[in-house]
């Protein structure tokens, strides 16, 4: 419901349709363009007063109030989507936070299974043990 009085506009909102947080969110968007004043009862009817700042014609104010209503609808929809997707988001975040822990525990398990005394790649051998004889052969060939 809208009521206009020169450079002031009154918008009455049914809180069953739009939550108070949606109203706050939409109000924050327009706070730099118009003076916004809230009154009434958050459980029964919320009154929003728009007062024009300097250099705003009544028509401009009407346009801003229309934009405010659109923004209100936008916020109400966002709230619905947030509520609908809450469990999915929580699941995704939990998975994202816990998956590195699982990966780390798997690596730790593998590391525990392996014996450090076994040396399948032969990296514990010294250079002489591994290449010492070849170098002697090469030395002989050179002679």
């Amino acid at each position, binding site marked *: 419901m809208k009521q206009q009085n020169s450079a002031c506009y009154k918008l009455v909102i049914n809180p069953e349709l739009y939550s*108070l*947080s949606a109203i*706050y*969110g939409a*109000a*924050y968007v327009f*706070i730099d363009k118009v*003076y*916004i*004043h*809230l*009154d*009434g*009862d*958050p459980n029964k009817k919320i009154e929003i007063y728009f*007062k024009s*700042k300097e250099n705003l014609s009544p028509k401009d104010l009407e346009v801003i109030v229309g934009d405010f209503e659109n923004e209100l609808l936008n916020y109400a929809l966002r709230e619905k989507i947030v509520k609908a997707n809450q469990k999915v988001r929580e699941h995704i975040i939990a998975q994202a936070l816990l998956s590195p822990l699982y990966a780390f525990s798997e690596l730790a398990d593998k590391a525990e299974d392996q014996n450090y005394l076994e040396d399948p790649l032969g990296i514990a051998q010294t250079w002489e043990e591994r290449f010492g004889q070849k170098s002697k052969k090469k030395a002989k060939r050179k002679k």
Partner: protein
Amino acid sequence: MIEKRLSVKFYNQTAIEEVAKAFRSFGKIYFKKRGGYFLVFFKDVKNDLGQKIANEFGNYVLAQVIKSRHD
């Protein structure tokens, strides 16, 4: 002296106190709670900008209330 009424159902005292501090340089600002409203009084406001300052004060308080809800 200019008076501004802010409903306790939409505005809170902390926000009003913070904004009153920020607006100290514009004049004397004090408030009291009565009948479900914060009555904010603006006294000795400079340059006859009382109404404008009162309106800006209201917007600033609203912004603080919204910000505090997200913190």
